[in-house]
């Protein structure tokens, strides 16, 4: 590795470990444990086992082997110049977590927790899932390691993410639709905790994000930080410099913490978390927890959350099932309060615009979650007019997942295929931009061939595949 006078960060070879949380899981005033006493013994057991595992060479070797041979790490960095034309002239690099086995960053964490499950001698894992990506990843790891697996998923989400429900079942997991409360991720978490407290002797809870009681926020961060550790080295090697900003979507916050952690000590690098703005933060129908929420206690930790004046959790709203969560991990609340990271809201319509743009300019169908980060990059690039001081701005976006699971939702939004643009079926969605044209088909060079239609007879993009 070269050293350069202008880039002292290159001297940092070993990834630094943040000084937080403290021994009892506090990130400043956030985090901790707010759970029934019955779970404390299990959380203590996990904490102890994790501390021992983290420094065990046998584990480190096994984990590295799985990440390389099974997940396909390191994930590449892709520059997206045609997309970046819409980002004010900034350069945009994507960290390709969408290329991981199972299609998102969730596998990084799950492999670690599955190994931990075996280490503590339990045979059954449970998980909550929103978009289904964490559920699929958990079902995958369970199949790989011979564990039995139950996934709790809000009934509403089983409908939105039917493809992932089928994937989990194919992988041998039991999927339990949760019909309490808002029938989304928050209620799936409640149900998973109830299962855990009842079956804790045989069962480990594989938590999907950097929220929940200690040790989950710390442990999941440690398993996800590989994203930023790789990306920091990759960007330094390609560019000889660090990015000006690192952007990621924030649901519970695991992919964002994963990509941020390596950069936290690099004070010149802006860390930007994009929350789900739904119909707009001012409409009250959103999932922008830090932007629009207040500190409180939910799901075992103190953090920002969406709550009413009685302390009841407010139901969140987002087109993206994986971001549709009224809480956020405590480390993000801390990074926000100390001013190290900034959090912004991206509406459904802005995210879907970025979604369509990446599909059409780069041939990459992103997860709708990740599209929020792309929209954030478009906005930040424009704000900067593409420049930081005297050079072209360099934005690193964590592409946390691929969009196969979202094809149905996107087709509805854009009125593609069987889905005529919905007009009065859902008024709010229409107002928010559903039914928007994703843009014209890009094939302007087509020459008519025998047996095919000429370009001017070709069906418009949004009508293609109508009855296929």
């Amino acid at each position, binding site marked *: 590795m070269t050293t350069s006078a202008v880039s002292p960060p290159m001297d940092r070879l070993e990834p630094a470990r943040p000084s937080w949380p403290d021994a009892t899981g506090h990130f400043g005033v956030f985090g901790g444990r707010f759970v029934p006493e019955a779970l404390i013994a299990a959380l203590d057991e996990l904490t102890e086992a994790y501390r021992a595992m983290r420094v065990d060479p046998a584990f480190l070797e096994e984990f590295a082997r799985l990440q390389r041979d099974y997940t396909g790490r390191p994930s590449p960095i892709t520059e997206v110049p045609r997309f970046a034309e819409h980002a004010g002239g900034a350069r945009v690099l994507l960290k390709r977590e969408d290329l991981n086995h199972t299609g998102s960053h969730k596998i990084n964490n799950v492999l670690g927790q599955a190994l931990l499950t075996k280490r503590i001698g339990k045979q059954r894992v449970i998980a909550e899932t929103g978009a289904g990506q964490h559920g699929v990843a958990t079902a995958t790891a369970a199949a790989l390691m011979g564990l039995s697996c139950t996934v709790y998923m809000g009934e509403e989400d089983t409908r939105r993410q039917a493809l992932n429900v089928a994937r989990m079942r194919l992988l041998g997991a039991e999927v339990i639709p949760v019909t309490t409360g808002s029938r989304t991720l928050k*209620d799936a978490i409640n149900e998973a905790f109830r299962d855990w*407290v009842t079956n804790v002797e045989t069962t480990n809870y594989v938590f999907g994000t950097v929220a929940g009681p200690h040790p989950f926020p710390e442990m999941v961060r440690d398993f996800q930080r590989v994203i930023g550790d790789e990306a920091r080295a990759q960007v330094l090697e390609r560019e000889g410099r660090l990015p000006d900003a690192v952007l990621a979507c924030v649901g519970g916050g695991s992919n964002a913490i994963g990509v941020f952690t390596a950069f936290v000590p690099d004070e010149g690098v802006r860390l930007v978390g994009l929350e789900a703005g739904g119909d707009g933060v001012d409409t009250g129908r959103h999932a922008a927890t830090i932007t629009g929420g207040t500190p409180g206690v939910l799901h*075992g930790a103190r953090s920002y959350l969406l709550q009413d004046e009685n302390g009841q959790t407010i139901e969140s709203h987002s087109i993206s099932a994986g971001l549709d969560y009224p809480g956020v991990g405590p480390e993000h609340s801390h990074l926000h309060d100390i001013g190290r990271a900034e959090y912004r809201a991206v509406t459904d319509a802005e995210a879907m615009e970025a979604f369509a743009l990446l599909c059409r300019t780069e041939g990459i169908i992103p997860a709708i979650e990740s599209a929020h980060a792309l929209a954030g990059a478009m906005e930040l690039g424009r704000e900067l007019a593409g420049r930081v001081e005297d050079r072209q701005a360099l934005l690193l976006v964590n592409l946390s997942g691929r969009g196969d699971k979202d094809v149905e939702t996107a087709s509805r939004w854009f009125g593609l295929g069987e889905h005529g643009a919905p007009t009065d079926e859902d008024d709010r969605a229409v107002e928010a931009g559903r039914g928007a044209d994703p843009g014209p088909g890009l094939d302007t060079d087509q020459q008519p061939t025998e047996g095919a239609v000429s370009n001017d007879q070709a069906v418009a993009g949004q009508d293609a595949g109508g009855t296929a």
Partner: protein
Amino acid sequence: MSLLATTIGAARAEGRAALIAYLPVGYPDVDASIAAMVGAVETGADVIEVGVPYSDPGMDGPVIQQAVDPAVRAGVGMRDVLRAVEAVAAAGAVPVVMSYWNPVERYGVQRFATDLAAAGGAGAITPDLIPEEAGEWLAAAEAADLDRVFLVAPSSTDARLRSTTAACRGFVYAASTMGTTGTRAAVSDTAEALVTRTRAVAPDLSVCVGLGVSNAEQAAEVASFADGVIVGSAYVRQLLDGAGPAGVRALSAQLAEGVRGGMPA
């Protein structure tokens, strides 16, 4: 002075366990829930756990969730809870608030302690607050002379039994089984073992047993080894089934016999 310790001690002096009834404020509505609480008092409950409705009751099973959900949606809040506390105190029993932590934190911990004491409440049971996270509450409760009841569970180590009971005042809530609230066919035999272990580290603190007690027979069984018998889901079941305050009274009368070691005819 601990209202809970005094009441449970008085029951003990009569050679029986105390009957502690849980009912959530706001189901089917605030007034009806208060009427049910008063009904339970008039038919023999010594202590009422005045339940604060919460949107994410992670320790509760389907029965209590079903009752609490409409109360949450109706916007029932701490003001209604304090009104219920006053009514229970006026009816002659000891009210203790049962609340997940966020509603208390949102209301303001100091303000909660002050207002609860003014309403005649004994203190609070906090199912998702462990003593390690309870610094602000312990200080506020001490200043307002309120009881604080934490939970112990079959999975608690002896060290935790010691530290948790040391932070309690009034009584310690022994969760009889590993699981959520709900009626069960039999009282788990882990309950008695937990009570024995708890008494061994905290001989001067009353130990009350909850989770899964639903009829007089089970109440009698628990009363044979615990200082208090906590019944929740069975009461709520009466309301969910539409039996109303009359159903609550009938159940309370049976349970009151149970905690005296008797069986209803």
